[in-house]
């Protein structure tokens, strides 16, 4: 089976997401589709999977043009997509999720779950995937959930399988297992499209590489001969440096002292389980771990957004375990939250309004409870320029900025005042390479000026690039600690610790 995308153009209003894209997908081959966030990779694949209709161009399967009116048409044409955010229903079983939409039925619409289970087991056996058809999705680890997505696609007898950023949620070990599965699928004659922005992965797995930038195919590569640097340049459109420069490690006094910290989730499950950690001024401590191992709760507890169930948190000698968020803020703790859209900013507010969200009450901006807006505007414009926030005016809604500029705005707000400590959660998630570089340099800058930095990331590369020390969280506890200043960090060891495999 061969699928050809010919001259595909897709617009959203003014924005051209795909611009005259040509792409061929062949059986028995892994096509790597490389591009930054927002380059139009997902849009292109959503066109192919029938979720979007292209404004121009056509899709040909084995040379014949096809017209997809919805996901159903694409599925029956043999195209299956594994979405970045899994499309699984947590309270359904594996079998129920697999059959949804193409259910085996008996009389009076009776759902034949027995048959479904058998069919799932058959696919399991054929492709060496081990998944219990009767387990609920919510009880399965992410890596297995991804297998369920693959089974779903295979159940619909897809010949083309699209993986959209499949490794974003996996541990390094799960990635290795996943690559084995992808290879075995390819060897059975499936056509695979592998979408990612991670350079080393695309070189590992692809047979052919296409690079997408700003909606256009800007280059093709042969993984045998191309290097990461070449690919990165194609993807970003300019030379990229992978190294971050920083001053020598010179930690001073303990700034943040966490003792036996225990935090519960809303349902009283233990999220953070008796953590001990010290962060000095002038050092960056990276918290590594697969998402959902208590990192978010740790950050929330440190910033005063959730109640602490046990233990103490001291900052600069003061006990702040139960201090209010504003009190912590005034002590000089800056916070770049995990989800900028939801916690970092108010999308409908202007950039200037967002910039004073934390200081509007300050004497600088208000007098007698009335905000001095002209002053706030002027200050916002200056800070925004300092932090390279690209915008037309400070009066624009923050929601209209690109992801990278939104994050820069949040960073600008948090760091443009006198700070002593920075807490950052997933500071570069979903950003383009340029913004990542910039935000990294700002974080390092803060450290070089003597701030303590504690940051959480599920991107191992980011952890390796920034941290002076690394702690790994697994199931609410710190299971491993690495000191980058004494031994070079080893990706594999950290990866194993992230999966909970600690000697």
């Amino acid at each position, binding site marked *: 089976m061969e699928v050809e995308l010919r001259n595909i153009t897709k617009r959203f209003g003014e924005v051209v997401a795909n611009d005259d894209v040509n792409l061929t997908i062949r059986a028995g081959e892994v096509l790597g589709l490389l591009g930054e966030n927002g380059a139009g990779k997902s849009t292109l694949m*959503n066109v192919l*999977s029938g*979720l*979007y209709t292209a404004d121009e161009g056509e899709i040909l399967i084995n040379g014949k043009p096809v017209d997809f009116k*919805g*996901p*159903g048409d694409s*599925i029956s044409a043999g195209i299956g*997509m594994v*979405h970045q955010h899994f*499309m*699984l*229903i*947590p*309270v*359904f079983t594996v079998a*129920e999720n697999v*059959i*949804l*939409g*193409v*259910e085996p*039925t008996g009389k*009076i*619409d*009776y*759902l034949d779950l027995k048959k479904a289970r058998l069919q799932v087991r058959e696919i399991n056996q054929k492709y060496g995937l081990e998944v219990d058809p009767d387990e609920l999705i919510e*009880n399965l680890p992410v890596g297995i959930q991804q297998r369920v997505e693959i089974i779903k696609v295979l159940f619909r007898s897809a010949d083309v399988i699209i993986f959209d950023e499949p490794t974003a949620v996996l541990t390094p070990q799960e990635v290795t297992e996943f690559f084995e599965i992808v290879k075995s699928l390819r060897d059975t004659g499936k056509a695979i499209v592998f979408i990612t922005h991670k350079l080393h992965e695309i070189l590992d797995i692809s047979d052919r590489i296409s690079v997408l930038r700003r909606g256009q195919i800007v280059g093709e590569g042969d993984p045998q001969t191309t290097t990461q640097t070449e690919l990165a340049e194609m993807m970003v459109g300019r030379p990229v440096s992978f190294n971050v420069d920083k001053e020598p490690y010179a930690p001073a006094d303990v700034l943040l002292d966490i003792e036996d910290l*225990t935090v*519960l*989730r809303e*349902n*009283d*499950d*233990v*999220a953070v*389980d*008796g953590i001990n950690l010290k962060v000095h001024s002038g050092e960056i401590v990276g918290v590594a771990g697969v998402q*959902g191992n208590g990192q978010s709760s740790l950050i929330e507890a440190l910033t005063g957004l959730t109640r602490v*169930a046990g233990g103490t948190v001291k900052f600069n000698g003061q006990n702040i375990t139960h201090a209010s968020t504003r009190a912590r803020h005034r002590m000089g703790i800056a916070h770049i939250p995990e989800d900028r859209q939801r916690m970092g900013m108010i999308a409908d507010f202007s950039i200037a309004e967002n910039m004073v969200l934390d200081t509007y009450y300050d004497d600088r901006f208000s007098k007698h409870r009335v905000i001095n807006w002209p002053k706030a505007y002027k200050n916002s414009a200056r800070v925004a320029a300092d932090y390279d926030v690209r915008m037309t005016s400070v009066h624009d809604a923050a929601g209209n900025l690109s992801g990278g500029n939104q994050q820069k705005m949040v960073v600008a707000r948090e760091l443009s005042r006198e700070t002593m400590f920075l807490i950052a959660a997933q500071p570069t998630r979903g950003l383009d390479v340029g913004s990542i570089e910039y935000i990294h340099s700002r974080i390092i800058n803060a450290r070089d000026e003597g701030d303590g930095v504690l940051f959480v990331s599920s991107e191992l590369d980011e952890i390796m690039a920034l941290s002076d020390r690394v702690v790994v969280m697994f*199931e*609410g*506890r710190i299971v491993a600690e690495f000191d980058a200043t004494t031994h070079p960090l080893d990706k594999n060891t950290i990866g194993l610790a992230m999966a909970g495999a600690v000697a």
Partner: protein
Amino acid sequence: MAKTMNPIDAQARKLDTAKVRQARNTGVILICLSVLVAYVFAFGTSGGDAVFRLSRPNDPWAAPNLVVPAMAFSYIAAAVLAFLGARQFMRGGVKWTGLSMGFGLLLAVAAFLVWATAGKSFSLTGMLQATVVRAVPIALGGLAGVLSERVAVVNIAIEGMLLAGAFTGALVGSLLGGFGGLAAAVAVGGLFGFILAALVVTYRVDQIIAGVVINLFVLGVTSYVSSQVYQEFRFLNNAPVFRPVRIPFLSDLPVIGPVFFQQNIFVYGAFIMVCVATYYLFYTRSGLRARAVGEHPQAADTLGINVYRTRYINVTVAGMVAGFGGAWFTLGSVGRFDEGMTNGLGYIGLAAMIVGRWHPFGALMAALVFGFADSMQQKLALLQTPIPSEFLAMAPYIATIILVAGLVGRARPPAADGQAYIKE
């Protein structure tokens, strides 16, 4: 997370405070009930036996009356309650918390009934029969709630749909007879279901506001017509009433017969609909798809399931069920429409849905509890207990509060409940 906590069992147990707290709270409540039963019911009783009549004298297989010595029963009940309560503080009490609570409440209610009946006699079967009858509109309201919330549409409008069904049933029933009225009630319920779906699915009006709008609209229109038009044209508000249908043989069974098999078509209809809805939601392809739409509409969409159409169909059918339930108020009981006669039972239906954990049978069971509270207060008013009747009339609503407060935290609604789905 919960599954992977074994390596630190000791720690986990120490922190497993929520369950222990709940077990302790249950213990405290049970012991309070025990004290209440001992002091108020046992000491306060006038003594004598409580006589519960189970059959009427001319029943084919008359069961003998149930005679309970009031004082002794109260003491035994108090003792059992105290034991159950104390158990909650011992090791392993956590395990049986729910069951102990349920049994304890049942016992307390029984003790209350015995106390109220002491020295008198009282038809238990009659009360149970009334329980089932009064549970009908609540169960159907709850079922309508289940059907629409399973596709993630919050249906506050059930109250209005019940009222519209009651009104239409009476109006059309007066003109065309019972079955015509019933069909019209179902159709009008379905119409309001469709309107709700249009508002929330297509126009993405906030689901609560859309529901309230429908409720106020129906209340306004029906009140106006009944107070203005019906005063002049009384024949428009004089519908026939569906009489109980005896199911041969089964209706002759003692207790069970009168309670379940000598009822009108609304009762049978409610039971059948609950069974059909359960089959539909959990055993059919369309049911699986409907639930998928309620849990994760985007996932359903990527699999080629039409989210909007599924919501329209389910909410419309929910409206028809509520319309049928509404007809019970007029065609199933008094044959005439009165202003605001649903009296908030639609909302209690929603509570039944929550207590019943979004399951048709659960909603039915919860409705029976509410129905029981309702019929008990009515019968007790006849027994002339020292409790003022106004207070007794609160019983169904108090039962709602207790059950919802006790259970609501643990029940899990469909994940997308209340959210409009915007196709990209």
